[in-house]
C-alpha cells in the first residue's frame, strides 16, 4: 500500500478518534457527575451515589418538568405522526407544482429556525389568548411533523403501486385499502417517525424557551434555568442522565420492534 494511502488512513482515523472524543466526552462527563457522592463535581470520581437522583425526584419543579416533558412529547409525537402520515399518504403518488409546494411546506419546519417560530407563535398566542400547554403542544407538533412525513413518505413510495390496485380489484374501497394494506406496510415508517418526533420534542429548546410559562415547564428549559440562575448543581446532572436514559430506552425499544437498519435508513 502506498505511503499516501496509509497517510490518508491515518488522518481519517485520527480525525475520527478526535471527533468522537469531542462529541461524546461532554455527555460522559455529565453522566459521571450525576453519580457523584460529593456536593461538587468530582473527577476522577471517588465513588458512586444515587443521591442526586433522589434529590431530583424530591424536587417538585424537577419532577413536574420531567412529567410534563414526557406528556408533551407523547402527545406531540402522536399528533405530529398522525398528521405527517396523512400528508405523506396524500402526496405519495402525486406530481406537479402543487404537490411539490405542499411537500416543501410539510418539510419546511426542519430547516426553519425554531427560535423564530417560537417568537412568532408566542406573539400569536398572546394576541389570541392561547393557553400554555396546548400552544406548546401545537408548536411541537409543527416541529415534529416533518419527521413522520418524511419516513412515511419514503416507506409508501417504496411500495409496489400495484398493491393498492390489487386491493381495489378485490373489492377494497379507499378506507379498507388504507387500514388493511397501506398502514400495515408503512408501519415501520410511522414508528420511526414517531420516535424521532418524540425525541425532538423531549429535547426541544428554542420554541419551548418562549412558550413555556409558570408551572408549565419542560425539563430542558428547567435545566437551562437552573444553569443560568443557580449555577451547576449536580441535580442537573441527574436530570440530564435521566433524559439520556429515557432516549436510550426508547431507541432500544424501537430497535426491538422495527430493527436498527430500518430506523437509520428510514431517516
Amino acid at each position, binding site marked *: 500500500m502506498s505511503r499516501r494511502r496509509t497517510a490518508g488512513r491515518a488522518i481519517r482515523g485520527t480525525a475520527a478518534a478526535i471527533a468522537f472524543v469531542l462529541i461524546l466526552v461532554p455527555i460522559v462527563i455529565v453522566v459521571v457527575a450525576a453519580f457523584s457522592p460529593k456536593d461538587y463535581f468530582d473527577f476522577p470520581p471517588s465513588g458512586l451515589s444515587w443521591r442526586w437522583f433522589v434529590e431530583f425526584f424530591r424536587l417538585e419543579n424537577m419532577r413536574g418538568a420531567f412529567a410534563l416533558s414526557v406528556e408533551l412529547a407523547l402527545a406531540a409525537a402522536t399528533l405530529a405522526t398522525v398528521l405527517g402520515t396523512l400528508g405523506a399518504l396524500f402526496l405519495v403518488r402525486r406530481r406537479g407544482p402543487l404537490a411539490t409546494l405542499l411537500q416543501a411546506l410539510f418539510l419546511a419546519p426542519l430547516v426553519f429556525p425554531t427560535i423564530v417560530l417560537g417568537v412568532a407563535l408566542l406573539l400569536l398566542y398572546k394576541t389570541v389568548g392561547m393557553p400554555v400547554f396546548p400552544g406548546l403542544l401545537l408548536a411541537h407538533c409543527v416541529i415534529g411533523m416533518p419527521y413522520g412525513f418524511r419516513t412515511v413518505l419514503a416507506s409508501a413510495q417504496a411500495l409496489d403501486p*400495484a*398493491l393498492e*390496485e*390489487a386491493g*381495489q380489484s*378485490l373489492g377494497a374501497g379507499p378506507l379498507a385499502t388504507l387500514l388493511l394494506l397501506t398502514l400495515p406496510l408503512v408501519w415501520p415508517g410511522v414508528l420511526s417517525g414517531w420516535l424521532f418526533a418524540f425525541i425532538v420534542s423531549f429535547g426541544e429548546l428554542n420554541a419551548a424557551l418562549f412558550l413555556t410559562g409558570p408551572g408549565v415547564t419542560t425539563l430542558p428549559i428547567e435545566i437551562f434555568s437552573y444553569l443560568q440562575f443557580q449555577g451547576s448543581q449536580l441535580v442537573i446532572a441527574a436530570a440530564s442522565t435521566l433524559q439520556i436514559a429515557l432516549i436510550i430506552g426508547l431507541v432500544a425499544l424501537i430497535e426491538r420492534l422495527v430493527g436498527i437498519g430500518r430506523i437509520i435508513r428510514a431517516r
Partner: protein
Amino acid sequence: MSALGSSAGEIDVRLTTVRKSFGPVLAVHDVDIEIPRGSIFSLLGPSGCGKTTTLRLIAGFEQPDAGEVYIRGDRVTALPPYKRNFSMVFQSYALFPHLSVAENVAFGLRMRKTPRAERSRAVTEALDLVKLGALAERYPRQLSGGQQQRVALARALVIKPAVLLLDEPLGALDKMLREEMQIELRSLQQRLGITAVFVTHDQEEALTLSDRVAVMRNGVIEQVGPPREIYDRPCTEFVAGFLGASNFLDGTVAAREGATAIVETAAGPIRLGADAPVGARVRVAVRPERVRMRRDGAAGLPARIRDIVYRGPVTHFYLDSAAGALVCHQQAADAGAWSVGDEVRCAWDPASAVVLSDGRA
C-alpha cells in the same frame, strides 16, 4: 373497427367507442370490443400500443375520456374499480407481503363479507386448483416466482369474478415455466368457464391461449379474430409482420376470374382469392411455411437460393427474386435437396395468399 364476433351466449365485457388520452398522447383511439362469456380474449401488440391502457379501462384504474364500459350488461364507466365485478392478475403479482398465502387468497372474500367457514373452504379449494394447498401458511417472500403467480391466480379466481383480467401474467417466468403455465391457464379457464382478458406482447402466447386476439397498434385495433384467422389471413402489413415472418409481394391486378384475382408481380403472375378490381395496386402476404420450392421449369415465381439456415425442426431458405426477397420455411425432412445458388420456382396454394390493406380492415 368493431370487434363483434359471432357470439354464442351473453357478452360479458363491452367497450363502445372508448377513447383515452394522457396529455397530448392518444393512448386508446375509439376502441370497440365485445367479449362473449367464457372466452379468452387477448390484447396483443408492441409496447405503447394501448393494450395495457385498454385493460385498465375495463378495470376502472383509468377513466375513459369518451365511450362506455359495460360488464355483464351493467354500465360501469363511472364506477370505481372496487365496485366493479372483476379481478386481476398483475404483472408483478402484487401479493400482499404482510399476509400469508391463505390470507392473500381470502382477501377478496373478506371484502365481500363472506362468512369465515365458507371463506376458508373456498380458499382451500382455490389453492388446490392451482396445486399450492401445502403452502397456505407461507408468506409471499418465501415463494418462487412461479408459485407467487399461482397464488395471484388463486386470489383472483376465488371470488368468481365476471371477468378475469391478466396483465402480462407470464412475462416474468422463464420459457419452460411459461409454456407450462400457458397450458394450465387455458385448462383452468375452460374448466371454470371464466371470461378472461389478457394483455401480452408475445404473439406466440396470444395464439396459444386465446379464443380471439385483438392486434393493437398506436391505440387502434387493427384486426380482431380467432388466432388462426389472424395468422393465416392478416388484414394489414403490421398484423402480418407482428404475428410472425411473412413474405410481401407487390403487384397490380391484371385480370379477374370470378372470385380469383390474377396479380402481376415483377417476378410473374400469382393467383389468389381477392376482391380488388382490375388495375388496383396490391400488396400480397404469404407465410414462409406455405411456400413450396420446385425444380426450375415448374409453375411458380422464379427465384434463386441465396442462403440456407438450419434451425433444427425447420430449415430457413432465403431467396432472391425479381419481386424482392423471399423466405421459405421447410420441414427438415423435406429440405435436404437444395443448395445455395440453385434456381428454383416458388409456389403456394392460392388460398394461402392474402391481400393486405393499409390501415384498419
